[in-house]
Every structure is written in C-alpha cells, then in structure tokens.
C-alpha cells in the first residue's frame, strides 16, 4: 500500500508516517500544497491523506485540481475544522472521507482501510460471508452454520457493513456515519449496546466468536 501524506505539521507527519509504516504502508510525505499536488499528480498512490490548511496551496484546491484532471485516487481529508459545512465542502470537492483533528490513529487507519477496500469492491454482491456466517442480500436472510438468524433492519445493516469490512477495524464513528447515516457525537456508549445485541444473535450460541472488540479502536468481524 502506497500512501501520500500531504501535511504541513512535520511532527504529525512524522508520527503518521511511522505509524502507517508499522501498519504496513509505504508513506511519502509532502509538506506544502504545491509539492503535494505535484507528487499526487505524478505518483502512483493507493490513497491520499490530505490536510485542509496548507501553506502554498489549500487542501481543497489540490483536491479539485486532481479530480478535474481525472485522478480518482481515494482521498481522506484531515482538518482541524470540524463543522458540518466544512465537511460538506470537503466531500463536495471530491474527498472520499473526512476526519477531524485530533483523531486516534486507529480511526485514521480504519478509515483508510475502508477507503482502499471501497476501491476494490465494485461488483455488486448478492452474498456476503465470513466463516460460517452468511448473508443473502437479495433474500435479506442471515444464517450461521445453516441456522437462520432473525435480525432487525438496523441490525441487518450493521452486520452488512461489518461483513463488507471483514478483517478491518471499524470504529464507532464509522458505524454511526455509515449504518445510521448521522454525523453525531453520542454522549454515551450507544453503539456498544447495539453491537452487544448483534453479538448475542450471531455469536452467543456458537463456539467461535466472529465479532471482536478491538481495544481503544472499535470492532472487527473476522474468521477465527
């Protein structure tokens, strides 16, 4: 995985580079907008991490230029501005995801993985599967080891999202945004309760758990 990081704060860049390296990504770094645009346009990257406030050239301007030239590399925008309209601006300019500083590295990593996965899975699927857990998207049915599992519509969507990101960490914010479709900052651990309900349905009566909690980060659905 090759990632281009366009970020003017050298220390943040340094740590991100190190952390991404440990997570198995090769990271190039550009410290200002102009340099970043040149690298992004010429280099062959799997994803871009783009800070909004940059010297030289504004992050959104870089993004618009790239998209206008037909470059479709997934872009994750980083910003210290966290308001909804800023987010809307960022996504309208062609960003694929938006993350507000300060963020946990685990959040950034999870979203980056999701972005890369999105590029790979384009063909419409009718069945999703991990281990013996199967989801039929057409019949809206879920079975584990051949036994049918009854899910509420939201639980179905939650499980579908987890199945589409099998083996990846998904964070609580990602679930709120993607499954509930709200940019929302809950005051309590409401997502955990939903997960534990889902876990009760898909894991409780079986020997091997599939839905795991990743400490300090989120959840992961994976085969044992």
């Amino acid at each position, binding site marked *: 995985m090759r990632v281009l990081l366009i970020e003017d704060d050298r220390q943040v860049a340094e740590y991100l580079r190190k952390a991404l390296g440990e997570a198995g990504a090769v990271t190039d770094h550009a410290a200002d907008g102009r340099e970043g645009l040149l690298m992004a346009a010429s280099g062959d990257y799997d994803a871009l991490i783009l800070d909004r406030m940059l010297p030289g050239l504004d992050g959104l301007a870089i993004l618009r230029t790239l998209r206008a030239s037909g470059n479709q590399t997934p872009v994750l925008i980083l910003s210290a501005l966290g308001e*909804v309209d800023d987010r*809307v601006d960022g996504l309208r300019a062609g960003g694929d995801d938006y993350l507000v500083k300060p963020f946990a590295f685990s959040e950034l990593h999870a979203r980056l993985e999701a972005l890369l996965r999105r590029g790979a899975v384009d063909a419409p699927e009718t069945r999703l599967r991990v281990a013996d857990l199967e989801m039929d998207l057409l019949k809206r049915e879920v079975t584990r080891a051949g036994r049918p599992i009854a899910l509420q519509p939201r639980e179905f969507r939650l499980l579908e999202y987890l199945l589409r990101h099998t083996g990846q960490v998904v964070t609580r914010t990602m679930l709120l945004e993607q499954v509930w479709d709200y940019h929302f900052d809950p005051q309590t651990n409401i997502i955990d309760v939903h997960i534990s309900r889902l876990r009760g349905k898909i894991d409780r009566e079986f020997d091997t758990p599939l839905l795991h909690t990743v400490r300090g980060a989120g959840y992961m659905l994976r085969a044992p």
Partner: protein
Amino acid sequence: MISPPITPTDAGRRRHDPWARTAKVLKSSSFRITLFYMLMLSASVAVLLGFIYWSTAGFMDRQTDATIGAEIQGLAEQYRQRGLPGLSTVIRERFAQDPTGAAVYLLADQTFTPLVGNLDRWPAGLPDANGWMHFRLRERGPDHAEEHAARGQVFRLHGDLLLLVGRDVRDLERTRHLILDALTWGLAMTAALALLGGWIVSHRVLRRLEAINQTSREIMEGDLSRRIPMRGSGDDFDQLAAGLNTMLARIESLMAGVRQVSDNIAHDLRTPLTRLRTKLELLRAELGEDHPAGAAAQETIADAEELLTTFNALLRIARIESGGRRAAFASVDLVPLLADLAELYEPVAAERGQQLDLQAPASAWVIGDRDLLFQALGNLVDNAVKYTPEGGRVALALRDTEHTVIIEVADNGPGIPASLHTEVFRRFYRADHSRSTPGSGLGLSLVQAVIQLHSATIELQPNGPGLRVLVRLERAAAPETLPERPLPAER
C-alpha cells in the same frame, strides 16, 4: 386556513400581505400620533369655523334684530305722540315704501284680531320673554303658496294693542345654510386630509422602521454582515441607522475576533493534541498490551480523549453560536429522524429496563441542519435515558401544528426544579445528583446553541414526576422533490 410554506426568508414574504400591512399601519405608533394630531386639528378647525359662523350668520341675525328693535321703538314713539290713527298711517306708509316686501307689520287688538298691517292674521307662535318670535309666512304667489321663515318682535302698546314688527328671513336662512354647509365640508375635508396625511406619514415612517426591523431579523438569523439601508438625507432615521450600523460593525468585528480566536485554538491547540495522542498510541503499541506501562498509556489516552471531547464540544458550541453557518440547512423530515433516534437509544433504554416510546404523525418538515438536529435531540434523549431510574419511561412525541412542529421528550425521572430551568443550559452546569454520572456538562449548552441556530425555542416543564422538554421549530412545507443528502453515504 392555508398555511404557507415557511422558510427562514418566508417571514419576510408574509409581510407583503395587504391586510397584515394595513393592520400594521393602523397599529403603528406614528399612525396613532397622527390620529391624535388629526383630532386636535379638527377640534381647532371646528372652533375656528364656529367663530366664523358666529361672526357672519350671527352678525346678520343681530343686524336684523337691531333694525326690528329700532323700528318698534320708532313706531311706539309715533303711537305715543299721534295715537292709533297716526300709528296706522305710519305703518301703511312703511310697508307701502318697503321695496323688497320683506318687512312684516301687524297691529292687532288683544284678541289678536288684525287692525292694520300686511298680514291678514296673527301668526302662530309664542314670543319669548323679550317678545321675540319665529313664525312662518305664507306668501301667495300667482299659482302657488309657499311658506317661509320670518322673525319678529311683539311689543305691547299702551291700551292693550299688540304690535308685531318682523322680517322675512328666508334669504338670511339660505345664507346661513350656505355658510353652515361650507363650514361642515371644510371640517370634513380637514379631517379627511389629516387622516390621509397621517396614513402617508405613518406609512413612510413604518417603511423606514420596517427596514430596520428586517435587518435586525436577518442579523438575528445569523447574517451579521447586514446593514440598515440609509437614504443619505441625514434625517433622524439616517442618524439612527448610522448609529445602529456602527454598533453592528463593532459587534461583527468582535464576533469575527471570537471566531478567529476559536479557529486559531482549533488549529494551534488541536494539532499538538493530535501529536500527543499519536505519541501515546505509538507508545502503547511499542510497549504491548502485556507491559504494565501499556495499561497506564491506555489510561492516559482515555484521559486525553476526555479532554479532547470537552474541548471539541466547547469549540463546536462556540462555532454554532457564532451563527452564520447554515450551509447545511435543508428540508428535514423530523419524523424519520426521531424514529432513528428512538431506534438508536432503544437498546440502551432496554438495558436499563426503561420503556422508550415514540408518537409521531407521518411526516413533519422543518428547515434545518439534519446532523445538528439529530445531535441536539439525541442529547435530550440521552439525558432522559441517563437520569430516569431503571424501569422508568421515556416518551418521545412529535406534534405537527399549523405553524410549529413541537417535539416533546418526557421522562418520569427526578426532573429539574423550576429554579434551575435556565441554569442547566450554562456551560459545565451539573446538577448535584448528576455529578456521579458521566458527561461533560456541555450537552444542554450544545442543545441550546443548535436551538438558537434554528430560531427555535426550548422549554422545560415539570412532568409530575419527571421532566418534559418541549422544542418548537418553525414548520416548513414538504419539499416537492426529496432533498438530496448533502453527504454521500457508503452502503
């Protein structure tokens, strides 16, 4: 009644309803002042016209009376000197000489039988104490008889003879009527002109005031860059506008300063915080889960997390309160939003043995920021679930009235005493009984900021027992096409 679609700018459009406009002019203080002025003016004009009437019509009356009085004196003198025959001669000479035929002379005995005069009988009518009387004269024309008014004085001569000297006052009456008519019309026209003038003046004053009101409304809705239009005539309204505009410029620069500071904080402080956090994460990863310091690192991360959450919430409230950010405003149906909210919190409530109900109609549209509304209502539901004891009940309800959408979040928990109903919206306010529960004390401050951004209201009521929170939003019409979601969502 048809309820018009209401958008933030609709408040402006509704003012162009002509009836509302008229009612507004009639209610305006300038119109009332003009009305009072008009009454005063009409009263003055009435006094003035009364004087004119008195000095014209009254003068003619008095002159007639004086002539009659003088004649009676003359005739009485004749009677004293020359007796009845002399008087009769003089009377005959007098009315024979009268060219206009307007003079009336009649001498009668005490049974009112005419002796000499140009009347064939004593006229009906009672004289007053001074002998003055009004009576009708019948004039024999060639083919018709007509009656007209006359006025005269009766004088009792020595020897019980009655002398009536009078004048036909038909022309006088006609003149009097003419004068009276002219004066009445004059008064009516004065009143009408005053009313019209008052209307025009009030209308103009009101239009200037309306411009000021409109601007202040737009400013309250968050557009601080608005200024009150000026005519350039330097009149008192221009001076007022200039004063207010200077004030607004000052407020705007202060607000911009606040925003600048919060943006700077956002950028300058959040960046090192990001570093701090990333360092801690790397440290934890290097130490590994099993290392004793790893747990400490995890705790430190949690502390940093809490700090950042509070910090972010504060910045978010400040940004929302500074207004002007309505870019994400769109038509929002609150019913599915509430349903999502109920669905989201249902498991938490169920875990606490609480019942979470939702009562709502099919749809209820407002103009707003979907995510912020969800956040604000979510905070209310969160509080209700958090502070209601196990086994309690939280009821969400939505009522769609003609102009307002009312959202109700009611619980049967401990409630909030009425004396604290404004306190709880303060930043970092924590009720005593809630100090042990997790939370930053910023939840309701954020709710209030969102409510204000939407020009909505929030009200806390006792729910006997418990708390009922009422949020009222301006109702909007359902959009003709379904609104496009501002954010592309991955499925």
